């Protein structure tokens, strides 16, 4: 089982990202679970969301303490909260940033970065990065298929936003797979 923790800010869509990931994994024929960190956080405040992916039905309902993969939607969060808290040994970290992975020093973890903000601006004209970073997640971890992600986005976004976001997932994914960056 893989446990994934998303870090974002209230309103940024971290919870949606976690959910979409779970849906996509389910479409892949796997089992998954997604839930937010249950808080009273308002727009702007740091939030967390979780996805678990496994090959069996996931029974546990406790919190995620030792995530295998971290997804950070907003790199300023590093100054705010202990993002890497509990990160499993040999864990992976995916960060939305212009910076290079080398610029982050996260003891032992494998860091990947993606400039999701630029991609989102380019395609959506908006700073909403949650679908882009899911594309990156697929590319970096291989835990979910791009196609399933796209399907999940298509089914769960309002019509007017769905296609753009599908494009964003694909663009991000393709770009990273092709190692263009």
């Amino acid at each position, binding site marked *: 089982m893989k446990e994934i923790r998303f870090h974002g800010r209230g309103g940024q869509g971290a919870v949606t990202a976690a959910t979409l990931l779970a849906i996509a994994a389910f479409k892949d024929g796997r089992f998954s679970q997604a839930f937010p960190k249950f808080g*009273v*956080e*308002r*727009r*702007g405040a740091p939030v967390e969301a979780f996805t678990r992916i496994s090959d069996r039905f996931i029974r546990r309902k406790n919190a995620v303490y030792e995530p295998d993969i971290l997804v950070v939607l907003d790199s300023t969060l590093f100054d705010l909260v202990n993002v890497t808290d509990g990160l499993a040994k040999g864990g992976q970290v995916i960060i939305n940033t212009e910076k290079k992975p080398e610029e982050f020093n996260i003891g032992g973890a494998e860091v990947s970065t993606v400039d999701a903000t630029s991609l989102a601006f380019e395609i959506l004209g908006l700073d909403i990065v949650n679908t882009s970073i899911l594309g990156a997640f697929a590319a970096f971890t291989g835990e979910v298929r791009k196609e399933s992600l796209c399907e999940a986005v298509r089914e769960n976004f309002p019509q007017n936003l769905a296609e753009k976001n599908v494009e964003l997932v694909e663009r991000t994914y393709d770009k990273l797979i092709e190692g263009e960056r």
Partner: protein
Amino acid sequence: MAILGLPEEEYFSYGHRACAGCGAAIALRLITKAAGRNSILVEPTGCMEVISTPYPETAWKLPWVHGAFENPASIASGICAALKVKGREDVNVVAFGGDGSTYDIGFGHLSGAFERGHNFAYICYDNEAYMNTGIQRSGSTPYGAATTTSPAGKKSIGKEVWKKDLVHVLAYHGSPYVATASIGYPTDAYKKIKKAIETKGPTFVNILATCPTGWRTPTEKSVEIAKLAVETGVFPLYEIVDGRHSINMPKDASRLKPVEDYLKAQGRFRHLFKPERNDKAIKYIEERVKENLHRLTQCAEKCF
């Protein structure tokens, strides 16, 4: 020290957890300034309670109590009685709650406290829905607004009935002072709240407070929209002192901005314009706004 007529001292501290651009937080600053140091505050459950007291922190610098969602007016009644017996009737008792508490679940108790005639001021920060629980409709939600329990849909235009006229309802409880205010006009609001607090008996101010999260408006527009509500006549400003109305806004409907400006500025009314324009609903709103203003003006001129 006063700035724009408002005391400089703050009794509601920063670090509170309200959303950026929260109009209710502005209202709280005004309420506490009007109340001043010699006050006891009572608040029901709601956004402003949740964002202000994350144990072990508190944003308050005044005595403050929260019991439940329904009972701020009843708790205030108990405080008033206790102060009376203690001979401390100089202390202001100020209760304030969101419209959910005030218009709906707590209204029976508010009505009771007004009937009994306790000496306290009740301020409703009216953000026109249950925000704390995620934007559900309240008795104060305006006609046509979409909320999560009155969503727009194939068979629904959002809230299907008109906003409850709580200000008149409480005026008819025999209150010596009731008023409307808006965070768009902080000095006016401050004065009204102060007047409410200073008037003996149960008094009421309903202050319109934009919720950018719930109204789906840009955070920077919170004050602008609260002004627009007044400028379009959707939310008229007035006082009723001992049963006599006085309106403090243009009474001449022709000088008002179009109601549409107000509706269009907010995501919660978007479905009235998109995918297609709902002329019937918009017209109904416009007309009813006009009619209300007309009645109000009549009252102010002729009646009480």
